[in-house]
C-alpha cells in the first residue's frame, strides 16, 4: 500500500460540506445531547450511586447480623431475639415541632431521654440478668445498626424516586452527599469491633484524661451513669466528672454539673473533648478555646451553657482533633499519646484561670467505652 499519496480531505470529505451522511454524523450527537443529555448523565450517575447503595445494604446487613450473633452468643436469651431486634431497628423518633421555638430544647430533651429509657428497658427485657456493661454495649450496637438501616433507607428512597421520575436534578444532591454518607457509614461499621470488645475509641480521650486523674480517689455517682471525684490540686478544689466507664456510655454530664453547681461555689468549668478535625488538619492535634465543647443533639450543651450563664462561670475547652472514623473506632496511638499533653495543658489552664482556694469542674466529655475511673 502506498501511504505517501494519502489524501485526508478525500477520506473525510472535508472539502465537501454537501455530504449528507457526514452532516448526520455531526448533528446526531448534538441532538442526542440536547434532548437526552440529562438522561445520559442520570444513567452514568445512577451506576455510581448503585455501587454505594450496594455497599450500604451490605453494611446494614452486617451490623444487624453482628448484633444478633452477639446477643445470641453472649447473653442468656429465653426466646429467639431476632424478631425483637428487628422491631428495635425499625423504631423511629419524631422530633418536636419547631414552629414555635420557645421551649423546644426541653421538648427535644424529653423526646430523646424517653427514647433512651425506653430502648434501655426493652433491651434489658431480652435477658433480664444482663449487667450494665452488656446493656450499654448492646444499646450502642443497636444504635449503629439502626443508623445504618436508616441511612440505607433514605439513600435508597432518594435514588429510586429520581429513577422513577427520570429526574436528573433530583439525583444531584444525592450524588454530592454520597461521599460524606459513605464515610460516616464506613466509620460506623468499623466501630463495631471496638465496642464489642470494650476497647477505648478516639472519642474517649476526654474520659481517659479525667479517668486517670480520678484513679485512687473516692468516686460517687452524681447523675445517671456519671461519676464524680473531688480532689485537691495546687490549693484548688477540682470536681472531676466523667461518664461511668468502662461501659459504652456518654453519661449525663450536664445533669451532674447542674447538681455540683447547686451545692458548691464554682469559679471555672473546663471541658475536654474530641472534636472533628477539618480536612487538612492533623489528626490528634490539640486546641484550646472558649465555650462548651460537647457534641450530640445540642440539649446537653444548652443545659451546660444555661447553668454556666446563670452562675456567671466561664467555660474553657481543650479538644483533640480527629476524623469521624477515628472518633468511633479503636483509639489510634497518636490520640492515646495526647493524653499526657492534654493533662499538662489542663494543669496550666487551671493555674492560669483560677486563684488559689477556688473550685473548678473538669468534665471529660465523650464515650467512655473501655475507660474506667
Amino acid at each position, binding site marked *: 500500500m502506498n501511504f505517501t499519496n494519502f489524501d485526508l480531505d478525500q477520506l473525510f470529505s472535508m472539502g465537501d460540506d454537501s455530504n449528507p451522511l457526514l452532516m448526520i454524523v455531526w448533528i446526531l450527537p448534538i441532538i442526542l445531547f440536547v434532548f437526552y443529555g440529562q438522561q445520559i448523565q442520570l444513567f452514568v450517575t445512577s451506576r455510581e450511586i448503585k455501587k454505594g447503595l450496594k455497599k450500604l445494604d451490605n453494611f446494614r446487613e452486617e451490623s444487624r447480623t453482628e448484633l444478633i450473633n452477639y446477643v445470641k452468643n453472649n447473653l442468656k436469651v429465653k426466646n429467639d431475639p431476632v424478631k425483637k431486634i428487628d422491631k428495635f431497628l425499625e423504631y423511629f423518633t419524631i422530633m418536636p415541632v419547631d414552629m414555635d421555638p420557645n421551649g423546644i430544647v426541653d421538648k427535644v430533651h424529653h423526646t430523646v431521654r424517653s427514647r433512651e429509657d425506653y430502648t434501655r428497658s426493652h433491651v434489658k427485657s431480652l435477658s433480664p440478668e444482663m449487667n450494665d456493661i452488656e446493656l450499654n454495649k448492646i444499646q450502642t450496637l443497636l444504635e449503629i445498626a439502626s443508623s445504618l438501616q436508616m441511612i440505607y433507607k433514605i439513600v435508597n428512597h432518594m435514588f429510586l424516586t429520581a429513577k422513577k421520575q427520570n429526574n436528573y436534578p433530583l439525583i444531584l444532591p444525592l450524588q454530592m452527599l454520597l461521599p460524606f454518607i459513605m464515610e460516616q457509614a464506613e466509620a460506623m461499621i468499623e466501630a463495631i469491633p471496638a465496642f464489642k470488645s470494650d476497647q477505648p475509641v478516639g472519642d474517649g480521650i476526654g474520659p481517659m484524661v479525667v479517668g*486517670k486523674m480520678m484513679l485512687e480517689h473516692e468516686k460517687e455517682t452524681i447523675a445517671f451513669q456519671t461519676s464524680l471525684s473531688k480532689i485537691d490540686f495546687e490549693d484548688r478544689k477540682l470536681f472531676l466528672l466523667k461518664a461511668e466507664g*468502662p461501659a459504652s456510655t456518654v453519661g449525663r454530664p450536664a445533669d451532674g454539673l447542674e447538681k455540683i453547681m447547686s451545692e458548691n461555689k464554682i469559679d471555672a468549668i473546663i471541658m475536654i473533648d474530641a472534636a472533628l478535625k477539618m480536612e487538612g488538619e492533623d489528626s490528634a492535634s490539640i486546641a484550646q478555646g472558649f465555650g462548651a465543647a460537647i457534641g450530640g443533639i445540642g440539649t446537653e450543651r444548652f443545659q451546660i451553657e444555661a447553668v454556666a450563664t446563670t452562675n456567671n462561670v466561664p467555660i474553657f475547652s481543650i479538644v483533640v482533633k480527629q476524623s469521624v472514623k477515628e472518633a468511633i473506632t*479503636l483509639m*489510634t*496511638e497518636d490520640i492515646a499519646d495526647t493524653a499526657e499533653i492534654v493533662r499538662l495543658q489542663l494543669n496550666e489552664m487551671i493555674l492560669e484561670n483560677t486563684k488559689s482556694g477556688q473550685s473548678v469542674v473538669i468534665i471529660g466529655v465523650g464515650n467512655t467505652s473501655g475507660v*474506667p475511673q
Partner: protein
Amino acid sequence: MIFSKKKITTEYTVEQCTKCGTLTKRKFNHGDVLFATLLKCASCDGHTRIEKIFGETVEQ
C-alpha cells in the same frame, strides 16, 4: 473496588511500671482494660498499669 487495599488493624496494649516507669508494648489480650494494675514489673518490685490501648492500621 480494584484499587482499594485491605486494611488490617492490630490492637496493642502498653503497660507502664508505676514505680520505675518501664514501658512494655504487647498485643492486646481480651479482657485488657485501661488503667488496670497487672503483674509485677520485670525490672523492679513495682506493679505495671495499662496506660494505653490502641490500634495500628496497615494497608496491605
